[in-house]
């Protein structure tokens, strides 16, 4: 039944003509396309075509048949096929040409330039957005009627409470790893006991807060972007605006405040978990009893280091929330855009957190804390 279409050059009393037969459908299009190209080289323009032998024909076949005829007459069609051919002939035009690709080296420079500009624009817009948040915050805080306790509680649960298991587990494991690593190096100097200082110092000052910030950037910052982004693409953000509400106040402030509260609390848990991880390794593998561990921690001046570490938590929280929400507002239209901006949000938030942490380390070192 299904026979691939074919066309042959034939001669009759009144000149040559092409006899087409078989099925002229999309399935056989590649072969037919090659056949048509070949025949067109051999016959003169506007050759007569006898299509009486054609089995099934669809728009793809009609397009190829018209291509073969090239303005010539196509005979032997019944009314339905004539209608199909006419419909295709009426709308035929050259395929849409793709924009020409520029030489790759120039394109490389162009992309580099665009990316560099984008970095600058991102920083500029982030600063503007932070200003906008602060202004809205100052306007909203004195007016308790404009607080949104329900939204705040919801985001506290989502970004704070639900993150507790992963934050605690991750810091516990890293605490144990750092203790092992430290003990291995320090053993050569007979100074295994300084593992306590290593754990205390690193988790109170740096690791606790930084690991939590990175986890929250990946977990909550990305969620903020995706939530606001899909609201933006479905015009929900516009709806908020037309209802006389401020999107910053409705969408950003509850998320920002939730992170401002949750991140320091999570950081305390992270520090504890890291130190416990170190202490467990110490007790079971390094012969450092838990009493000794705690005594040495107290001698270290642990409280001072705790404040150094925890002071950075609100800063990270603010930046992660601001970046997450801003990237959400940048989303436009497509599903792909939501994905791009979510990725961008996580990368930026982690980058900014580490950069601010490095700057803070230098700052605290210079002022001698």
């Amino acid at each position, binding site marked *: 039944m299904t026979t691939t279409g074919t066309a042959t050059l034939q001669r009759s009393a009144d000149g040559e003509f092409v006899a087409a037969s078989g099925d002229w*459908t*999309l*399935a056989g*299009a*590649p072969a037919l*396309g090659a056949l048509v190209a070949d025949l067109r080289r051999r016959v003169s323009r506007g050759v007569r075509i006898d299509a009486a032998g054609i089995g099934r024909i*669809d*728009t*793809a076949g009609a*397009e190829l048949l018209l291509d073969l005829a090239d303005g010539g007459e196509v005979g032997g069609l019944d009314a*339905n096929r004539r*209608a*199909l051919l*006419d*419909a*295709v002939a009426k*709308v*035929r*035009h*050259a*395929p*849409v040409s*793709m*924009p020409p690709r520029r030489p790759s080296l120039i394109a490389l420079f162009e992309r580099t330039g665009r990316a560099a500009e984008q970095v600058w624009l991102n920083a500029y817009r982030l600063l503007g957005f932070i200003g906008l948040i602060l202004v809205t915050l100052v306007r909203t805080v004195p007016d308790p009627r404009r607080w949104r306790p329900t939204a705040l509680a919801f985001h506290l649960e989502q970004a704070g409470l639900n993150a507790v298991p992963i934050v605690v587990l991750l810091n516990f494991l890293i605490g144990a790893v750092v203790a092992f690593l430290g003990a291995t190096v320090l053993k050569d100097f007979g100074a295994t006991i300084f593992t306590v200082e290593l754990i205390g110092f690193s988790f109170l000052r740096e690791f606790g807060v930084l690991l939590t910030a990175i986890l929250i950037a990946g977990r909550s910052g990305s969620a903020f972007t995706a939530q606001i982004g899909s609201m933006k693409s479905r015009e929900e953000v516009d709806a908020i605006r037309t209802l006389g509400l401020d999107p910053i106040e409705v969408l950003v402030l509850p998320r920002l405040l939730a992170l401002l509260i949750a991140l320091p609390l999570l950081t305390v848990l992270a520090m504890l978990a890291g130190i416990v991880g170190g202490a467990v390794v110490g007790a079971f593998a390094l012969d450092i009893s838990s009493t000794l561990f705690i005594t040495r921690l107290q001698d270290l001046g642990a409280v001072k280091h705790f404040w150094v570490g925890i002071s950075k938590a609100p800063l990270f929280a603010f930046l992660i929330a601001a970046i997450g929400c801003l990237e959400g507002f940048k989303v*436009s*239209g*497509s*599903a*792909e*855009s939501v994905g791009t901006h979510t990725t961008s949000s996580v990368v930026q938030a982690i980058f900014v957190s580490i950069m601010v942490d490095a700057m803070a380390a230098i700052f605290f070192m210079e002022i001698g804390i």
Partner: protein
Amino acid sequence: MTAPENVITVRGLRNQFGAQVVHENLDLDIRRGEIVGVVGGSGSGKSVLLRSIIGLNRPAAGSVELLGTEMTSASTAQRSEVERRCGVLFQNGALFSSLTVAENTMVPMREHFRLPQAMMARFAALKIALAGLPENAGAKYPSELSGGMVKRAALARSLALDPDILFLDEPTAGLDPIGAAAFDQLILTLRESLGLTVFLITHDLDTLYTICDRVAVLSQKRVLVIGPLSEVERYDDPWVQEYFQGPRGRAAEAAQQRLHAAQPH
């Protein structure tokens, strides 16, 4: 044309979500080459019926025969074979937002046939033109199109493989009257030239009066009545009477009669 044969046969269809029964013992026959309009109140299960026929929704009971294949018991390969011969235009277009219109149209060709890129581009341009879009629309992304153009682009994609049956879910909803009328004419033209069978869900009374050969009324969990519009609008049921004899129904009918008077056949 061959003698009328059924391309869609639905027997004893039952759909339910939880305790809510949407369809109960629903029968429907659609013949080759006709345009059938499906109407019904909101929530009467028009879209669920469409989804059941094209296999997106597994019915609780009953059989759906599509182009001679029993869809509920067919193998994956058989289903794929039949689905390839169906074009679906979803209510909101459902174009892939990360692809251009031309690329959207090429997706089914690319997935089902091995065609050279240049040939696919040519066929895509043809389908886009058949759907009544200007030449430059192919390079645009769905977010850059107006509502009417999105519908036409989605139609171009649903025509990509030259389907035997075209399913349209509210094709004229959200279009301005001129655009809606043009879309109606486009469906008619495509039916005449491509020999399509069209299953059409609509609330647009003008569409019903202009292009539908038969109208099916979905009510009381089944197809209450199906037939030419002149028969359906006389059917003795309060909902049907209100639908067709209400102010909008009468206006659409009057408009259609004026149209016929203006262009005598």
